[in-house]
């Protein structure tokens, strides 16, 4: 049995020619628009792929539009060599996956506390969290750099060892520390998303768990987290991808150690190629190599991602 409105709709669709045409016209316009936007988004990607397989001869050949005439993998070889791809790739994977997991933990805990475990000053703390989103990262850039350059943990390390603090630049510690304390890249946003999501889960569920004898920890791990899977998928993808693409924090904290985004920036210098057009072609190949793992990953997870969007309560 359908609802009455569904029947009305059926009736209108079948017997009302004006409505029918207007629906049809809208469907056509919608299709054109969506195809157009998809084209605009995909075009640069396809262009990059097409360029990456061209040989040096093809770039000056105006008759080559999409399919390269002299198909070659030379560009990839040169780009991989110039950017030390494999070491950079490994570093990027280390940083991205470790920070993703760690900040997931710290952000969900904090967000749960903001949503349900109210304590004195928790509102002020939450306002501060929102404040961290609004302050441009460049404002605290220098003190942050100096914090990690002479890392002393509020003066504790000099007190214990007598040295002048640790130099954490060029290690992965800055990323792990800031992820663990929920102060990493865009962590304020993640806390906000999780808080909204936890607030959307009915209080009764939790009360039932309490009556059944579950403590706070148990409620959190057995009830709240399984319910928050859509939000977790979204944030996992975001944090992995943003950390992967980030060039600001990595270039601030890693001077010698290279990750993909920084090695890409230095690639132009390392190429020693006299022809600027060919250089930019190789750079383009480098960009493709940097984003390729992400695009491949996205092909696999996008289904869950798009589905989870439907159920993510980022809403108010």
């Amino acid at each position, binding site marked *: 049995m359908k609802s009455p409105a569904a029947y009305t709709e059926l009736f209108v669709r079948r017997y009302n020619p004006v409505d029918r045409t207007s629906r049809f016209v809208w469907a056509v316009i919608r299709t054109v628009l969506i195809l157009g936007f998809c084209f605009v988004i995909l075009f640069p990607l396809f262009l990059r792929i097409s*360029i990456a397989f061209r040989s040096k001869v093809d770039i000056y050949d105006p008759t*080559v539009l999409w399919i390269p005439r002299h198909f070659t993998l030379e560009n990839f070889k040169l780009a991989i060599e110039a950017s030390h791809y494999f070491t950079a790739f490994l570093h990027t994977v280390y940083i991205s996956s470790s920070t993703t997991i760690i900040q997931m933990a710290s952000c969900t805990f904090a967000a749960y506390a903001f949503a349900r475990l109210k304590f004195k000053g928790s509102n002020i703390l939450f306002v501060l969290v929102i404040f961290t989103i*609004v*302050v441009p*990262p*460049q*404002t605290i850039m220098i003190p942050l750099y100096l914090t990690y350059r002479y890392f002393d943990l509020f003066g504790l390390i000099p007190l214990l060892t007598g040295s002048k603090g640790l130099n954490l630049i060029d290690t992965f510690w800055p990323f792990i520390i800031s992820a663990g*304390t929920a102060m990493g890249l865009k962590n304020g946003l993640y806390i906000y998303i999780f808080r909204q999501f936890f607030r959307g889960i009915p209080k009764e569920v939790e009360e039932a768990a309490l009556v059944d004898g579950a403590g706070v920890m148990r409620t959190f791990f057995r009830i709240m987290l399984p319910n928050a899977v859509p939000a977790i998928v979204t944030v996992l993808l975001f944090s992995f991808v943003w950390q992967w693409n980030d060039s600001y924090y990595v270039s601030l904290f890693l001077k010698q150690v290279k990750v993909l985004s920084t090695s890409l920036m230095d690639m132009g210098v390392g190429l020693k190629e006299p022809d600027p057009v060919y250089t930019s072609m190789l750079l383009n190949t480098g960009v493709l190599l940097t984003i390729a793992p992400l695009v491949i990953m*996205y092909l696999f997870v996008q289904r869950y991602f798009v589905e989870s969007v439907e159920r993510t309560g980022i809403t108010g």
Partner: protein
Amino acid sequence: MFKKPMTLKQKNAWFGVLFTAPLIFGMLMLFILPLIQSFRYSLSSLDMVEGGFKVNYEGFANYTSLFTDNPDFPRTLVESLVNMVVNVPLIIIFSLFAAVLLNQKFRGRPFARAVFFLPVILASSAIANLDISSFVGGGPIGGSSDGSDGSGMLQSFELNKMMLESGLSPVIVEYITGAVDRIYEIISSSGVQILIFLAGLQSISPSLYEASKIEGATGYESFWKITFPMVTPLILTNMVYSITDTFSSNQINLLISETAFKVFDFGMSAAMSWVFFLCVSIVLAVSTGLISRKVFYYD
């Protein structure tokens, strides 16, 4: 001695403190202290000495020299702010539009959604800096446009003429054609916003639409009377997000970083960032003030 057992509320509060302990720790060490220090640096000049640095208090010298001596700063600041003010409304309008489109039922919707979220994956400052247009500009394949080279201008030239002839004011025409020319930039920076709007649209109860349909509302009416008011809180969220999102890739931030790590003028760089922060705060305060008057909460 018996200790009084804690009430549930107290117990929860203690767990709350426990759960946020890392955050509080990080907030102090990596946010509040650096913020205070940064302000202090902006009022002084830093000298590198052996094993550390020395801070010399100089008052507002850095701030005054920013606007009197520095050739780049005022221009870059104005450019970045104008860019922000121009782009953010476009991004929000486009992402709302795209979200409404993607929320309708049609064949191939999963594919369209996957494509629309692709820019979230691809958008990054490292890649944006090496945009493909640098290649297209130099190579013979320049005929194909991605919106940022010459042929994009040519396309909107016709549109421009058409709209001017139909009697629109030149300012609006300029704005719209500018938006058309930068369509790639706008699309690629609105992935997250589309997602937020889409989640919001999903949460609107279908019974509202059903009721309005029975009352005889057209699609146009139900958009402006139901959909739009229901997503206004998200417009606020999206606006704040879009504004902060520009931080990663705008000119002024580049200038601030360069001043710090190429010129090694830490005091000047800190002063720049505080001026920028102040301007952004003003933009945020004015726009949230304007929008939150119109925001509708369905509670």
